[in-house]
Structure formats: structure tokens, C-alpha cells
């Protein structure tokens, strides 16, 4: 019986996604006690004492970097599972890629965290590196499996973006993202390999004002920016697949995403050598964001049309359209979070860039550092909420639970992101001497918002854990599915010869 459940957790797409989210949840719950309010309430001291953590102050930056990587590896693994589940590929490739990435993220996460926080056993450090190497190797395999120019992946469906020769441009976008991710990983791996040979760990936000940054430091700065961006690109493509993104906007969006991903990546890599790299990054960001906009327009238009149709209407008033739009918070939410991102990340970033000399560089470095840290934490968390909304749908939430979960994730996270944005920009409207009430309020709202999301996440995980104890639980049904959702076609080319039939391998 246990073997069956393990086969579900590590042998099916939904099981793998569930296991990775559970791992991230556990790490978040445990390591979240080391900072913020939990530290202030004394929980950190208890956790450190009880678990025997070794928190050498001189190694803090190194520990944080390991923690970021451990969580990021699991997020990347989730995206890989979703890609192999959503796109057509041979079953052999799907199995090999999923197995490799699973061992990779598990090894990196478990041994990385033990090495970073519980004394330095260098065998564990080796296994941390080994895990990341496996992740890289699984990325190479993914690129091979995705290769869009293979005959069997060509499409003729006029609803989806493709070349005259039938090359699926959405698949090209996935492939470009995966290839760019591999190249970008090297920009972190190479400086990391020099650690101990003169290269020292640092947090990018700490050196932002240094006029002369060594080339390896610049490589790391390029690496961390592009990796998060590419994770964002991947989830945008994935939610597009989830909602069957197609039509004119798909044909506009996919070329934009491909071109944007390439330019954005080249820009980030150029940070190592060129002063003009930021200009390239700005240029590359535009088509990527426009593709996101195309998806949001498509998604919301589809939600409105299907919502009206469900009510027997062909046309509706403004209020009826709004009701149709927001009737499913999970599907509405992914688009909304992308829109909301502009207010808490993109516009803030553009404003900061435009007013850098006049405002932000007049502040002390610590103030600018708060802004930078808040900026990327919001973006990373926002991507996580999109994944969570997607997973909530994959997990089969229905009815009131679906609505409550969706809205709590959206409202809770947006409350937190808005509060953090006000917090990081507070010097624009309040002096240091008078800031305490602003700090208190924004932190309270942030904690309430994030707490709400974490409660939903915990409830979801507990529900799935309880389900695993049932002989005929939902996991049995999900185990029988090879891909993501047997109820609807998930790919521009059908994942299976016939979506309604028992899943099979793609004929090659």
C-alpha cells in the first residue's frame, strides 16, 4: 500500500508536483521561524536551541544563498513537471526527466539545508552540488525532449501560433526558455565553482553601490535576475497552456515571448561585460510583458464569454461581465496576479530606475537595499501564488472551497505585496524619525496577508495528506493520469491521441 502511494507521489505528474509543494511548505514553515516576526517573538531562539542549528554570523550570507537555491530548485522542479505533463513528448523522456529532476532537487534541498544550517559536513555540500548538477542535466534532457523542429511536434491547427512549416511556436517558446535557463545557470555555477579560490559569497543588494564590481560578482547579479525572470516566463507559458491560450493573441504573444526571452537573457548575460546591458534588458522585458498582456486579455475574455454562456447570455452588461470574469478565482487569479505585478514590481522598478539619481541614491544604502530586497521578494512570492492557484485547480478544488481558496490566496497575497511596496517606498512620504507607525502597519498587513496564504497552503497540504490515507482517495484517480488533466486538452497538440481515451504515448 505504501508502495502505491510512493508511486503516486514520485511517479505521476500531479503526485510529483504535490510532493515538491509539500517540501517547499515544510521548508517555509521551518526556516520561516528564523526571521521576521517569528524571530522577534523568540521562536527562532527556541528552534535554534532545540534543533542544534549552527548560525555562525560570518556565514549568514552563504546560508541565505543556500536556502534560496534549495527553494528555487523545488520551484524549478515543479515547472519541469508541469512542462513534461502539459506538452507532448515521449513517455520515456517524461519519465527520465522527472526522475532526474526529482533526485536533483531533493538532493540539493535536503543536503544543502543540512550543510548550511547544521554544521559543515562537506559530503553534504557535495550532494548539494550533485543535486544541482542533476537539475542541470535534467534541463539538457528537457531541451532534447522539447526540440520543436521534430516532425511529430509540428502542428497545422490554425488556432495556435506556428510557422508555415508547422513548427509550434509555443513549443519554441518553452524550448527557448529552457535553453536560456541552462545557459543562465552557468552564470551562477561558474562563480560558485570559484568559491574558496578568491571568490566570496555576497548578497547582490549589498554591493549595488560599489562602482567596480568584479566580473564574477556581475555574473552572479545577472544570474539571479535572469533565473527569476525565466521562472516567470515558464509559469506564464504554463498557465497559458492550462487555459488553452490560442487565437490571434496567441499568434502575437508567442513570437514576442520567444524574442523577448532571447533578448532578456542576452541582456542579463551581458551584465558581466557591458555597460549597456540594462538597455538590452529593458528592450527584452517589453515583448515578454506584452506576451503576458496577450495572455491576460485572452484569459479574461474567455472567462467572460464562457461565464455569460453558462448563464445563457450571448451579450451581457458591465456587471454581468464582471460577475462572469471573477466567478472562478483560480482561473481569474493567475491573470490578475500578472496585472497586479505591474503595480508592485514593474512600475516600482521603472520608477526606481527613472528616479534613481534624484531620489533613491540620495537615501542611505540601507534604504535602497530594503527597496531592492522587497522588490524581488514580491516578484518571487507572486510567481509562487500563480503556481499555487494553478495547483489548486490541478488538485481538483471545486465549489465553495475553490472560491474561498482562490480569493484568500489572491486577496491575502495582494494585501501583503501592497504592504511591502508601501514599506519599501516609505521614505518617499515619511521621515525616519516618524516612520514607526508606518512600519508597524505595513508589517502587520504583510503578516496578515502572507499568513492567510500560508493557512490556505497548509489546509491544501493537510487535505492532500489526509487523502493519501484513503484507499480510494483522490490520489488514486490522479495516479491513473499520465498528464495533468484528463478532462480537457492541455496542449496545442493533444497530449494524447484522443483526450477522452486512456492516456497513451505519443506515436513516434
Amino acid at each position: 500500500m505504501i508502495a502505491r502511494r510512493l508511486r503516486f507521489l514520485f511517479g505521476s505528474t500531479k503526485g510529483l508536483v504535490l510532493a515538491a509543494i509539500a517540501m517547499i511548505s515544510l521548508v517555509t514553515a521551518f526556516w520561516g521561524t528564523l526571521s521576521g516576526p517569528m524571530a522577534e517573538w523568540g521562536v527562532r531562539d527556541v528552534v535554534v536551541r532545540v534543533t542544534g542549528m549552527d548560525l555562525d554570523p560570518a556565514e549568514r550570507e552563504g546560508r541565505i544563498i543556500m536556502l534560496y537555491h534549495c527553494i528555487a530548485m523545488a520551484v524549478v522542479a515543479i515547472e519541469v513537471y508541469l512542462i513534461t505533463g502539459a506538452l507532448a513528448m515521449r513517455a520515456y523522456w517524461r519519465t527520465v526527466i522527472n526522475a532526474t529532476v526529482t533526485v536533483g532537487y531533493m538532493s540539493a534541498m535536503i543536503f544543502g539545508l543540512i550543510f548550511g544550517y547544521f554544521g559543515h559536513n562537506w559530503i553534504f555540500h557535495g550532494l548539494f552540488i550533485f543535486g544541482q548538477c542533476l537539475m542541470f542535466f535534467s534541463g539538457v534532457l528537457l531541451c532534447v525532449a522539447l526540440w520543436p523542429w521534430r516532425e511529430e511536434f509540428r502542428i497545422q491547427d490554425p488556432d495556435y501560433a506556428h510557422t508555415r512549416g508547422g513548427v509550434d511556436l509555443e513549443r519554441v517558446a518553452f524550448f527557448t526558455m529552457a535553453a536560456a535557463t541552462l545557459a543562465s545557470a552557468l552564470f551562477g555555477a561558474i562563480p560558485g565553482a570559484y568559491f574558496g579560490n578568491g571568490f566570496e559569497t555576497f548578497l547582490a543588494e549589498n554591493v549595488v553601490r560599489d562602482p567596480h564590481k568584479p566580473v564574477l560578482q556581475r555574473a552572479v547579479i545577472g544570474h539571479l535576475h535572469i533565473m527569476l525572470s525565466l521562472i516567470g516566463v515558464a509559469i506564464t507559458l504554463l498557465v497559458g497552456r492550462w487555459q488553452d491560450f490560442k487565437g490571434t493573441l496567441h499568434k502575437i504573444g508567442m513570437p514576442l515571448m520567444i524574442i523577448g526571452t532571447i533578448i532578456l537573457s542576452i541582456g542579463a548575460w551581458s551584465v558581466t561585460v557591458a555597460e549597456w546591458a540594462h538597455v538590452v534588458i529593458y528592450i527584452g522585458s517589453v515583448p515578454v510583458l506584452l506576451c503576458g498582456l496577450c495572455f491576460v486579455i485572452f484569459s479574461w475574455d474567455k472567462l467572460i464569454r464562457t461565464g455569460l454562456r453558462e448563464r445563457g447570455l450571448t451579450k451581457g452588461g458591465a456587471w454581468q461581465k464582471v460577475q462572469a470574469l471573477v466567478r472562478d478565482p483560480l482561473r481569474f487569479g493567475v491573470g490578475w496576479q500578472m496585472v497586479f505585478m505591474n503595480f508592485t514590481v514593474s512600475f516600482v522598478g521603472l520608477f526606481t530606475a527613472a528616479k534613481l539619481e534624484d531620489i533613491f541614491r540620495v537615501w542611505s544604502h540601507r534604504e535602497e537595499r530594503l527597496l531592492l530586497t522587497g522588490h524581488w521578494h514580491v516578484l518571487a512570492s507572486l510567481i509562487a501564488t500563480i503556481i499555487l492557484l494553478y495547483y489548486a485547480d490541478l488538485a481538483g478544488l471545486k465549489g465553495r472551497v475553490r472560491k474561498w481558496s482562490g480569493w484568500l490566496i489572491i486577496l491575502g497575497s495582494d494585501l501583503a505585496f501592497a504592504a511591502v511596496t508601501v514599506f519599501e517606498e516609505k521614505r518617499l512620504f515619511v521621515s525616519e524619525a516618524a516612520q514607526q507607525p508606518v512600519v508597524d502597519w505595513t508589517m502587520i498587513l504583510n503578516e496578515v496577508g502572507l499568513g492567510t496564504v500560508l493557512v490556505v497552503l497548509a489546509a491544501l497540504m493537510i487535505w492532500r495528506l489526509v487523502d493519501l490515507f484513503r484507499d480510494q482517495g483522490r490520489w488514486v484517480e490522479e495516479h491513473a493520469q499520465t498528464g495533468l488533466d484528463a478532462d480537457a486538452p492541455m496542449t496545442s497538440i493533444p497530449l494524447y491521441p484522443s483526450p477522452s481515451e486512456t492516456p497513451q504515448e505519443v506515436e513516434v
Partner: protein
Amino acid sequence: MKRGVMILVLFAAWSLTACGPSAGQTESAIPVFETGVDPEAWALVPAGEFYEGQFAHEVTMDHDYEMMVTPVTNAQYAAYLNDALHEGWVKRIQGQVVGYYPGDVFRAYRHEFPIEAGDWLHVPLDEPGLRILEQGGSFEAKPEYANHPMVHVTWFGAKAFCEFYGWRLPTELEWERAARGDDDRPYPWGKDIGPGNANYYHSDDPFESIYGKQGDTTPVGFYNGGTYGGFETQDSPSPYGLYDMAGNVWQWMGNVYEYQHYRYMRGGSRMEYEPYLRVWARNNAGPDFHSSSVGFRCVRDLSE
């Protein structure tokens, strides 16, 4: 309905109590503590090899010097202002104390601002957070803040203070040597930090009960093992007997680096979490920046 109203009332009451006064606004209830640490005292920091930075690189300090045992206090700065204005060392122009600075070499490097020769801000006299009063044509520290570190002083103002007396601001290396001694400790007093060691964010000192978690400056030498208003401190000097080398206020350093106009600060402040109190932690801002959490101390060379 009733329950909802009750929740709202409780929330509103809690909200109001959560918004405490900000530093510099409600000063009638400020506790006054005498620490017994003399702000006029100096400590010898000997030449020698030591570990510099987070990664403990071995470097050599090639000269002995003395450093102020505590940051410059409001009382000291007020007395200086009276003397310096009298002697024409600084000027008072429209609510500001300003002074001449010969300027930096400007290379027009990326993000570099020109620091030109001319009069630059030392102290903004109209700043609400300033703890110095002007009465009858002379300056004096607000009584409850006399032994607190001087704040809202720019790098120009800190440098001018030191040079007025024939001293100077410490270099980053001198400051770190003085904070750390001969070993690779992360904090001036040792490896670990707790609320009894220094004034940092949410460190529970008596001023945090008035102003909230960011608190206020504490008197210089506060963390000397004394008990103040029921709050017990641990004696937390650096290996050379210097107090407030971590927390309370950031301290201006004397270095002027090429290709940038930023001036650096060390030590962390009452506004920071513990990691920013580590001896290698840095902050920086333009030389005309001032804040309620930035102060300074001076060094003097023994040859003089």
C-alpha cells in the same frame, strides 16, 4: 452583528495603541540615565596584524592611534558649535550650520555626484529630530538627550567637528581594528548578540517601550553592565574598551573613495536587525546625508 462591532472596536483600540509616538515627538517622558562612561575618554588602539572583513583577511595596522570611547554626544556637539561659530570655523545660514569643504576629485563615473568646493550642510537646525536647542544665541543639548549620541549630522559636520580639535574621522580599517581586536569575532564583545549587548531593532531597551521597536538612541556607554529602569545590560565593550561600536547609531568613516561620492558608515544602528551590527557591515550615503540614526566618533594620531 454585535460580535462584529465588538471585533471592530477591539481592532480599533489595538490599532491606536499600536501607533506609538515617534522619536523626537514626545520627549517629556524620556528617561534620563547616567551610564558612568566618560564621553571625553579615549582608548589606545595598537598597531598590529588583525582580521579584516567577513572573510577574516589578515591585514596589518601600521600605526597606533586613539579613538573616542563613545560616539560624540549632543552635549559635546553643542559645545563645539558654540566655539566653532565663534571662531568662524562654521557658519549659520537660514536654519543650517554649514562649512567649507574643498571638494572631491570628480571623475563623472556612473552614478557619481560631483562634490564641489564650497559651503556644505553640517547640521540642519530645523530638523525635528535634532537634540540640540538654540537659546539666547548659543547652543545646548536638550537635557534628556545630553549624553545621547549626536544625530542629524552630515559627514561634513562630523569631519569638521573632529578637525576643529585637531583630530579626524577614523578610516574603515581603523574602525574595524578598534571594534574587533585581534580575533575574528563578529561583534565587538564576542560571537553572540542579545538585547543586553546593544541597541538594535526590537532589542527591548527602555526607549522601545516609548517609541516602538525602532526605539530611540540610548545614552552612550549604556551597554556597560548596568541596570537602567529595570533593564539589565551586559558589559559590551570592544577589546580596547570602546562602547557603542555596534548599534545605537551608524558612525561616519573618514575614507573618500575614487569614482564615487558615497561616504561609508559602520556599526549598525537602533534601526537595524542584528546582522547589520556585525563589525564588517557597512552603510553609505552622500556626504550631505543626515539621519536620526547616524552619528560619529573621532580618532587622533599619537604622534600629535
